[in-house]
């Protein structure tokens, strides 16, 4: 495993990765105006295709494969960041 994959990500980096993934899909959205506590899909027009593409981008970026049954945990920016940091530290612990 690549060393860079082993390092711990800060929350800021995780949020950046999320915004990067979403920004590529919805370039018209000003994410500084998105409330991190409110449901993302009520603020950004995302369909299931957009959502899947965001999941694929996060996988490429962070190496985390998010299973479908966990999609429910990705409702808001904050909950997505929580979920990803949990998964990343769990991965680090098993290495």
């Amino acid at each position, binding site marked *: 495993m690549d060393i860079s994959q082993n390092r711990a990500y800060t929350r800021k980096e995780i949020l950046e990765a999320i915004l990067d993934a979403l920004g590529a899909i*919805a370039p*018209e959205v000003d994410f500084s105006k998105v409330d991190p506590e409110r449901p993302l899909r009520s603020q950004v*027009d995302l*369909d*299931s*295709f957009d959502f*899947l593409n965001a*999941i*694929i981008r996060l*996988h490429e970026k962070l190496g985390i*494969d*998010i*299973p*479908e*049954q966990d999609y429910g945990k990705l409702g808001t920016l904050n909950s997505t960041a929580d979920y990803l940091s949990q998964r990343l530290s769990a991965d680090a612990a098993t290495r």
Partner: protein
Amino acid sequence: MPSLGADMDAGTLVEWMVKPGDTVQRGQVVAVVETQKGAIEVEMWQSGTVDKLLVTPGTKVPVGTRLALIATKGEVSATPEPVAAEPAPAAAVTPGPPVAHPEPHPAGARARVSPAARRRAEELKVDIGIVQPAEPGATISLADVERAAAQLQVRPLEAAPPAAAAGDWHAQMRKAIANAMSRSKREVPHYYLSTQIDVSRVSDWLIGENLKRPVASRLLPVVPLMKATALALREVPELNGVWLNGVFRQSSAVHLGMAIAMRGGGLVAPAIHDADRKTPDELMAALRDLVARVRGGRLRSSEMSDPTVTLTNLGEQGVEQVFGVIYPPQVAIVGIGKIVERACVKDGWIAARKVVVATLAADHRVSDGHRGGLFLAALDRLLQEPEKL
């Protein structure tokens, strides 16, 4: 100029990708055309050799206008096949803007016009027909247009600010949709059917399939619905085809038009060719490609002109049922709502089941409610055996 949808009456040739003497194959992209729904790649529907390009880039011409002459195998170029001779539904060719000719003209004929000059003439609202070239026989240049405009004392339109371009495009898109949908509601006697389908099995099947797959090749729930729709259409073929000049032409192939929303508003419904013969993975790949090109790239002429039926899926926004408006000249549109969990009675027991409402809006000139009902029943039956899709 091919008709790339019932709502298109003209298009602007943007670019030629071939030149005279080039050999072209059926399906090859030979030109790019700007329409109200964005730039579309025009494909050849026969092989041959490019004999002459008749329309210069930058020219807006009505649907049905010859764009180029193609010599087919064994033919001498004197009897060329016109490009854009495709059956163009409702394409009464009205006299359009003059078509620039790439060959020398005898005196009295229209002069050649450079693309920049033509654009400038449009901007300045100068009739290109009155513009004289600097020297007899020369190509009309931008300067010639501006001189003519000055002589006419035509006040040039203010240059549109860049932001207005997007707004204009949006207005164009709305106009295209308005034309097609108004025509549909005016001419097509719709009838509407709806049924609730238990999709628990297909949902379970999908979960199992996606568990086996890496994230990049997961299937979306719409994929089995697309396949089942395409297969059910084989059983009730009078829903699959086009109504042209008072006659229904049934299609043996199922080219499934997918209604895809565009970011910032508007929609297009390009075709996935032979959807009934594609595997779920192939359908997913085709849909992925199509969505990406709807949102950021170019669609192809065959995708715009070929759909034999449309599928619209509004479940994403929480809509439980959608009754579509048929996109002429098609004769049916299938609507899929949101997959929801409901308490259902089965064999005397109440159970939580995943259900979806499937609807059909179809053209009563071609089919009746009974046949439409058979289609929805077939769709239901096919979705109960997802592993066979």
